[in-house]
């Protein structure tokens, strides 16, 4: 048994959001960062306190977020994205693409 397709259930829960993904490429032997725009259906919410409690002591002070994107996997671990001029770093991906969404754990980037 698996989770049914959640697309309909998510409809009222996500909203269209512009995400800028920072892509790294090598130009003339140097790393160059460029922004690529994605329009996605996003739900962004603070990570549950119970989850944060399980993290290491220093990591608990970081700003943890759960991002639910109504799409297949668009991002990778360690990717940096920008939502409303705030940078987030993807730390974990849960692939629920068979059910119509992907869940990411992100922190507000510290660099």
């Amino acid at each position: 048994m698996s989770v049914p397709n959640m697309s309909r259930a998510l409809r009222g829960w996500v909203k269209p959001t512009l995400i800028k993904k920072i892509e790294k490429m090598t130009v003339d032997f140097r790393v160059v960062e460029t922004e690529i725009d994605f329009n996605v259906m996003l739900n962004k919410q603070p990570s549950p306190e119970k989850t944060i409690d399980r993290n290491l002591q220093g990591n608990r002070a970081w700003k943890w977020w759960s991002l639910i994107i109504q799409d297949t996997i668009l991002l990778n671990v360690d990717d940096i994205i920008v939502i409303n001029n705030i940078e987030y770093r993807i730390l974990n991906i849960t692939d629920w693409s068979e059910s119509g969404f992907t869940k990411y754990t992100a922190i507000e980037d510290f660099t």
Partner: protein
Amino acid sequence: MIITELCNIIKNEMELAEGRIVIFSGSYNAPYDSEIFVIISQGNSKIIASKNEFDESTNEEVKTVTLYTNFTVEITSKNESAIERKEEIIMALTSQQALEIQEKESFKVFRIGDILDLTFIEGASNLYRYQIPVAISHLKQKRTNVNYYDSFEKTEVIDDE
């Protein structure tokens, strides 16, 4: 820049694909595959000489510093390519192409150090990693405009008496 020329020499001589050799920076991501990846970084410089000259033809101050700069070439791979091909770094730096680029860009590969095995740093992740120090003799020059006086007003001395 010298570091870019070093990358060019190693990339061409080892026939590495685009993106397999980078200049060290805080933002590069190591590749996820098993193939060779080369990182070049710049270290300390020893000052050999510095001088200032005036170029009359252009009215410019010419400032020159001669240096020995230590560069570090690191070759890594998850498979055994780094073990098998690490010597090719030294071959590349002493190649005919390298000599031609050195003459064109006014620098000299002064000394190539021993190949250091840094594989142990990676521990259980099993990444082969070798470091080759390369000392390069080069000069840096900068030209700036300076004020130039070639005529002086005569001083008038008034004697009251």
